[in-house]
């Protein structure tokens, strides 16, 4: 069963001076799971995620992602993960096609494969005619779906999404989550942070971080039972307020 855990974290900690941004968190994520990583602003979600994707060195603790140690092999982890940040990180001054070529290229895909993938991706998103449009002039919803697809271009085992749906309308958010479900069904593990509690309901399991610590971790259904409330929103409020 152990190899089913694609992410394993034990006492992972990040300190800035005396401040514990992330304070000894432990959890695991199963393969193909949609894992919700919740918390208020400044609770330490993004810092924790950055340690897992190998761009921030933990102060101490243990973590393996896709079978690789975050201390020893961060570059091997990077081959196996996709990442979409809350800052929208495609190039606005490049076209849709050029962005796909660039990111495909630096993940080491061959030009022929990239060409094929581009076609597939554009038709999947229903934007075949927008290949030569600058990304900067696309509507936010399209940009976000595109960023998600590009994060998956090298077919990673896990994809990390940091507040992927900030600022988009409910319809687009719905479509976005349909894409997430589809990918999870195909076996990709999804690790997602969000502020939207209705989105938390879509997750298989959620953890809730409060001031650097994981205060709760279970399925949304169980959490609601434990805290005797009807929605994840209330669970979150109870925890975040420390009630």
């Amino acid at each position, binding site marked *: 069963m152990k190899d089913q855990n694609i992410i394993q974290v034990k006492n992972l900690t990040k300190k800035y001076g005396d401040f514990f941004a992330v304070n000894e968190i432990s959890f695991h994520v199963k393969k193909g799971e949609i894992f919700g990583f919740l918390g208020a602003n400044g609770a330490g979600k993004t810092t924790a995620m*950055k340690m897992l*994707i*190998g*761009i*921030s*060195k933990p102060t101490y603790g243990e973590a393996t992602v896709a079978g690789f140690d975050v201390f020893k092999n*961060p*570059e*091997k982890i*990077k*081959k196996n*993960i996709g*990442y979409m*940040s809350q*800052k*929208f*990180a*495609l*190039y*606005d*001054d*490049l076209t849709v096609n*050029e962005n796909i*070529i*660039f*990111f495909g*290229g*630096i*993940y*080491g895909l061959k030009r022929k494969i990239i060409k094929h993938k581009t076609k597939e991706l554009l038709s999947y998103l229903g934007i075949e005619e927008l290949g030569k449009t600058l990304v900067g002039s696309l509507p936010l919803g399209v940009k976000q779906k595109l960023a998600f697809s590009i994060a998956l271009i090298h077919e990673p085992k896990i994809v990390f999404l940091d507040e992927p749906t900030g600022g988009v309308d409910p319809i687009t958010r719905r479509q976005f989550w349909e894409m997430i479900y589809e990918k999870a069904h195909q076996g990709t593990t999804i690790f997602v942070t969000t502020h939207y509690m209705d989105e938390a309901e879509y997750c298989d399991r959620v953890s809730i971080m409060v001031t650097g610590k994981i205060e709760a971790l279970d399925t949304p259904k169980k959490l609601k039972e434990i805290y005797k409330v009807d929605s994840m929103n209330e669970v979150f409020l109870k925890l975040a307020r420390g009630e």
Partner: protein
Amino acid sequence: MKTILFIIQKEFKQIFRNKAMLPIIFVLPIMQIVILSFAATFEVTNIELAYIDNDKSTYSRELISKFKASNYFTINGELSSAKQGFDAMQKGEIDVFIEIPSNFERQLIKEKEIALSIQIDAINGASAGVENAYINQIIQKFNAKIRAELMPVIPKSKGLKRLELTPSYWYNETLDYKTFMVPGIIVLLVTMVTFFLSGMNIVREKEIGTLEQINVTPIKKYQFIIGKLFPFWVLGIFILFFGMNIGRFLFEVPLLGNPFVILLFASIYILVFLGMGFLISNFTDTQQQAMFIAWFFVVIFILMSGLFTPIESMPSWAQKLTEFNPIRYFIEVIRMVMLKGSGFQDILPQLIKITVYAIVMNILAVVSYRKVS
């Protein structure tokens, strides 16, 4: 290797698509080289000169007419007193005034010696120095003529032999300042374009968040750095080529040496500034910070490069500091090759220093660039 090509392709697309960047790359260099080459001159002309003639004699008038005849001076007018002269200088109406004493002619004939009072506005020390030299030259000539007139009786054998110097200027016979300035300005252009654009470019990726996106990919540090900097290296070489052609065909600056020697030196020289730009971008988070730091260095480097003021006239500690100034070496080399026709052997010392500089800068840049924070 393939990964690097993907980055280079992307960089070139972005450079040529950026509407603000294109003029910086193509129009500004032409403007700078044309404007600076005409404007950055050491010649001082149109010196406003006034005089007080207390003697009103033949000799005093003759002296003043010498100034009138000079191309450098504009006669502002005659003054009635020194006070009026100082007032005019205070207001900035005149640059220089000369006071001829009342017994000028008599003393000159009798004592063979006379003191003139000359006041120079020295707000700008450099031009005051030049003005002083011009005035001295005119007075010397006047002096020589008077001597000849007043002392023809002394037998030649017994007379003091006058020593006259006739300098001949090598490598720039006519002392044309453009010949001197244009190569230096080409160096500045190459430096600024490569230094600023490379530094800004990487910080910009930090600002918009794409650098983080790149850091989560398995890309190698060297791939990223080479891919990022190569396009700016090409731009630098292009600007060098462009500037040298403007220099040759518009300003007729000679190119006596082998242009490939300059090209070789420039290829390594540009790496120094690309490395430095990258290094700065590793320690800054915004384009504003990077710009400020880059400016700080560029201003010091330019002012201490020997372009505007000769290094020989700097205090010795400052001369030692210029050993660390890459701009200094390139200006030396480009002037040597273009004006003197120096070859590879002659510029070898500079080439070695700049190569060491480039290696150090780029090692620092690679080491300080971290994918993991």
